[in-house]
């Protein structure tokens, strides 16, 4: 692998990687059973440089911002490298956001360039706010031949034969602006530097190395902090290969493990649970004696791997299970949200190592990671090399806010010195997550200090993101809270819920019509953003002089007079 201490930027490290392993496969793009692309490092370079040349010819300069909105595919990584080659700042946007949100973030980030997949561009073009788009250069991929793309350029046409000029960056320069939530009122654009990424890569690959021939399956979106690192920078700086799937259908994902002999993959808890469900269903279908035999072998494996995993032994004891994962799997990583210990233990007992960790975009990819020495599924692992983690304002049980200090912590929130000052204090990142560090140095999480939830798919949902959909509800006032914020002592990380608190008008009743109105509005939100329960409050909300709701005070009132189970009505 490259010695990343010698590099000042991602562009420089990737440039050397492309020249170091020219004939190694770096990228495979598959769509169901069809392989769409298979690139060596040399092929990758030859695809990216003409794009970089075209960017420069269009006036794109070092320090300029370029956004990408695409599902995982080879063009994503090619575009990202071309942008870094030009010294640009990458703005990787979540393709699952709505077109309205895409436009908001393009405006917020002042991206000069956008590389976007056709169906996402079509949705953007259809918005009234489209006329306000200031992004100068738009490159659309996979546009049908006669489609109207509103003056954007086609990927196939956007290249130049001239030799692009490599633009150096320093470690402290911004590499990416990564939005850690949807938009709502206040987009949180984490400005991450080249140093943040290089240091994170060094730490991660010291625990989980890559080398030429190792295949990483990238199913999480590359715009997300996890796969950007583990499914792009990590493998590429080690000469390894990344496999992109254009579909996330479970049957094609399962198939990819075997077809591409996958060594590593990252998932979110939702995907892991889906895999667990699938495996349990297959076990249940076995004839009784075979099922009994399987459970006996699992018990043996569990007993023999109690203190340390033993991949060779596990593969021998449970060959069919491991074959289903391709037989070469070294580890799965799971993060983005809380994972139940029971699920982690299920896989561990089969000899399938699922390394869970904890991180937040503000601190790079991962703050802590389980290292299996021994396996502690009741924790989120130990701090990675280079990470300082401490608990702020710990109570007598050692529980308090998780604070992080490291070279991977972001520079600041874009255009928001106030929020930055509230979040990074004296060099320590205040995560807003609540936990404790046990005697062996493992971190355990208990809840959130912040009024937000993280879904099983790893999405951060802030109440501000969703309150707009309820505007116009015929009540006196309303407010959305994370249930864990209202009742921190009953906080369940496995069951994070959003609650809408409603204050009716003087003589108003809670009627079926009102309930239907509320449910109808709730339905307009994507499923993972919906509110799950309502709470009727019998007092006016406390407000500031400028009439903003004092959320903290309202939450305190609610907390002191109610309990989670009695106060909520499911929607």
């Amino acid at each position, binding site marked *: 692998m490259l010695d990343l201490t010698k590099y000042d930027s991602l562009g420089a490290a990737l440039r050397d990687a492309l020249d170091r392993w020219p004939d190694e496969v770096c990228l495979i793009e598959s769509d169901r059973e069809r392989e769409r692309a298979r690139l060596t490092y040399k092929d990758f370079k030859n695809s990216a440089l003409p794009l970089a040349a075209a960017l420069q010819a269009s006036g794109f300069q070092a320090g300029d911002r370029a956004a990408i909105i695409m*599902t995982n595919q080879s063009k994503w990584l090619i575009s990202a490298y071309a942008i870094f080659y030009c010294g640009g700042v990458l703005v990787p946007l979540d393709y*699952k956001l*709505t077109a309205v949100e895409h436009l908001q973030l393009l405006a917020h980030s002042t991206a000069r360039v956008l590389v976007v997949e056709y*169906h*996402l561009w079509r949705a953007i073009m259809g918005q009234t706010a489209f006329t306000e788009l200031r992004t100068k250069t738009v490159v659309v991929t996979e546009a049908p031949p006669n489609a109207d793309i509103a003056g954007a350029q086609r990927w196939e046409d956007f290249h130049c034969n001239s030799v692009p000029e490599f633009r150096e960056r320093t470690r402290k320069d911004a590499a990416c602006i990564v939005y850690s939530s949807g938009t709502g009122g206040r987009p949180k654009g984490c400005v991450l530097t080249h140093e943040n990424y290089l240091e994170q890569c060094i730490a991660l690959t010291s625990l989980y190395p890559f080398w030429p021939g190792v295949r990483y399956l990238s199913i999480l979106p590359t715009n997300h902090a996890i796969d950007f690192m583990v499914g792009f920078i990590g493998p590429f700086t080690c000469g390894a290969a990344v496999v992109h799937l*254009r*579909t*996330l*259908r*479970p*049957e094609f994902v399962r198939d990819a493990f075997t077809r591409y002999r996958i060594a590593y993959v990252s998932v979110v808890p*939702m*995907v892991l649970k*889906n895999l667990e469900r699938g495996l349990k269903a297959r076990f249940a279908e076995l004839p009784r004696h075979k099922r009994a035999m399987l459970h006996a072998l699992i018990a043996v494996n569990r007993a023999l791997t109690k203190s340390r995993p033993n991949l060779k032994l596990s593969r021998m004891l449970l060959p069919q299970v491991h074959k289903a994962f391709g037989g070469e799997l070294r580890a799965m990583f799971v993060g983005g949200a809380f994972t139940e210990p029971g699920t982690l233990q299920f896989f561990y007992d089969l000899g399938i190592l699922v390394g869970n960790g904890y991180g937040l975009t503000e601190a790079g990819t991962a703050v802590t990671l389980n290292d299996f020495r021994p396996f502690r599924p009741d924790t989120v692992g130990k701090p990675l090399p280079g990470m300082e983690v401490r608990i702020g304002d710990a109570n007598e049980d050692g529980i308090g806010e998780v604070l992080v200090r490291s070279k991977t912590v972001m520079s600041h929130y874009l255009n928001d010195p106030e929020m930055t000052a509230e979040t990074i204090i004296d060099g320590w990142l205040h995560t807003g997550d609540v936990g404790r560090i046990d005697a062996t140095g493992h971190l355990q999480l208990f809840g959130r200090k912040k009024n937000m939830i993280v879904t*099983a*798919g790893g999405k951060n949902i802030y109440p501000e993101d969703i309150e707009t959909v309820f505007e116009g509800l015929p009540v006196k006032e309303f407010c959305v809270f994370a249930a864990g914020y209202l009742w921190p002592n009953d906080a369940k990380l496995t069951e994070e819920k959003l609650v809408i608190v409603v204050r009716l008008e003087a003589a108003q009743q809670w009627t079926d019509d009102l309930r239907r109105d509320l449910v109808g509005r709730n*339905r307009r939100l*994507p*499923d*993972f953003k919906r509110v799950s329960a309502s709470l009727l409050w019998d007092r006016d909300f406390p407000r500031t002089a400028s009439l903003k709701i004092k959320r903290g005070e309202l939450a305190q009132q609610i907390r002191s007079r109610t309990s989670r189970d009695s106060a909520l009505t499911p929607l």
Partner: protein
Amino acid sequence: MRTIDQTTDEVLDLAAAHFKVPRAQLSPEDDFFEKLKIDSLQALELLTRLENHFGVELPDYELQGVSDFRTLAGRIQARL
């Protein structure tokens, strides 16, 4: 050639069968995440089932922003 109503009916039949929910409980305007008690990955499994039945290919993005049966049927209908 199927009408949109026929397509919608068949979508409801298949969803009920795949997730073992009584067909009578489902109607076109229902939110399939709520009614079938599924997450987005399970919705993708349903998509495969629908592809096989209708003989069309539906890219994953057809599900983006869709959460009721009728709209889903509309996406299928457009490809028939």
